[in-house]
């Protein structure tokens, strides 16, 4: 069983297999299941992600009215204008935000690795898909690659905002997406690790400060940041750019930073954006002055 990204990449290189294959084989061994069973289970998750994006692009709104509809706005803009940041990137942003809009509206989503960060992995997947034209099997593999990296983070640091801030959630999710994009685009296992490190480095220190404690503001838009960074880092890694700080050490830094974060910035809804005049106003409006 791999414990670090270094071990994960070494197994892939020594056996000349993909990162996704390392994850699949480990899962088969741990769960004593066949490849078909594990593929089937992941295929279900993929279907949930696809359905959530479909729902989002029809337009959703959360119970509070704080979020919803932005995914559609971006899709319309892409049809009418030429986006400065490019169609693929903006498509990913729209689908990532859309997934989180569905989540905020209490729809059905697949946590990747959490619900608040559930947009990054599917958002990038269903955008990159239009350029790379993967098979359904390759799309399932995308999720195993993302999962392999998330597995290392979860066991060596944390993946929840309450434990380590948003860097642990959207930071991990965006980084997982970067690694998966690289594999789907034909990059090496080491390039996946470089992309992962570069995304997470840019997310270090990001706090979890949800307005009124709701997974809406700023969570939906942070998924826009995570997914766009994922694509940029993947391109950087595919171009041959490497991270000076090795991937596992970046994860270690993320862990230590999270440990130093005060509880007001770890999903308690007390600090940061939650503690702005508008943040406090919205909380009072939604829950009444007493809460």
């Amino acid at each position, binding site marked *: 069983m791999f414990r670090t990204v270094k071990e994960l990449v070494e197994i892939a290189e020594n056996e000349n297999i993909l990162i996704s294959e390392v994850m699949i084989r480990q899962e088969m061994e741990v769960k004593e299941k066949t490849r078909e069973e594990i593929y089937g289970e992941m295929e279900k998750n993929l279907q949930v992600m696809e359905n959530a994006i479909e729902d989002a692009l029809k337009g959703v709104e959360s119970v509070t009215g704080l979020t919803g509809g932005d995914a559609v706005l971006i899709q319309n803009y892409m049809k009418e204008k030429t986006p400065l940041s490019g169609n693929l990137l903006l498509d990913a942003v729209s689908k990532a935000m859309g997934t989180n809009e569905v989540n905020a509206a209490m729809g059905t989503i697949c946590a990747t690795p959490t619900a608040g960060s559930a947009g990054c992995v599917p958002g990038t997947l269903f955008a990159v898909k239009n350029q790379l034209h993967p098979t359904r099997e390759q799309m399932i593999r995308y*999720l195993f690659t993302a999962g392999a990296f998330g*597995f290392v983070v979860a066991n060596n640091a944390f993946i929840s905002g309450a434990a380590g801030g948003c860097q642990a959630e959207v930071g991990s999710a965006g980084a997982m997406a970067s690694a998966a994009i690289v594999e789907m685009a034909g990059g090496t296992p080491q390039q996946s690790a470089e992309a992962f490190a570069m995304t997470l480095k840019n997310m270090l220190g990001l706090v979890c400060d949800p307005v009124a404690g709701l997974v809406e503001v700023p969570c939906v838009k942070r998924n826009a940041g995570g997914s766009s960074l994922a694509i940029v880092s993947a391109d950087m890694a595919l171009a041959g750019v490497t991270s000076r700080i090795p991937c596992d050490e970046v994860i270690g830094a993320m862990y230590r930073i999270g440990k130093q974060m005060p509880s007001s910035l770890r999903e308690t809804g007390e600090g940061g954006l939650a503690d702005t005049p508008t943040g406090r106003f919205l909380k009072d409006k939604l829950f009444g002055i007493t809460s």
Partner: protein
Amino acid sequence: MKYNSVFDIIGPVMIGPSSSHTAGAARIGKAARTLFGKSPKWAKIYLYESFAKTYKGHGTDFALAGGLLGFETDDTRMSNALNIAKERDFYIEFIEDSAAVDHPNTARIVLGNETDTLELVGVSIGGGKVEITELNGFELRLSGNHPAILIMHNDRFGAIASVTTILAKHQINIGHMEVNRKDVGKEALMVIEVDQNVDDDVLHELDNAEHIIQISKIVS
């Protein structure tokens, strides 16, 4: 390792909005319901730190209720669970507790019916994954990675041997085991993680063994 499956990371499929506060909360509730072994009539739920501060916004309250009603994380009735509990005359009270705890997302559930009660502490560690850290005042570490049998028994010699003998007879391998007692000769708790799910007839046999008070199981 805390997480042992890729589906802890890519998953669970769930009703939003939070994996820790909604899906994890539902799983803690479900664990309490499973360990109680029957429908509870009432529950008092103490919430700590992030759970206490944000439970209304995250739907932690209805998720815990949903879990106590036996719902899975992707059950579409989840957001209506508090009403469903009311319809079934299941009384639930939430209490925000300011006591310090080891993990920010911690819930203590005391539940019962006319005759029995059960108290459990659950921690939502992230991504929908939970750990049960206390049961009826006994500390434990239940990861949910493997099926487990929980056995309340009297602290007497032979109690553990009688249990392991039955498991051996049915060729059930023990992966991890811990025994905890309140005091010499008093109530004790055996937690046994096994490799495969245990049939009800084995549980029944265990229930009838000497010094055994109560048995429950968790399916992984």
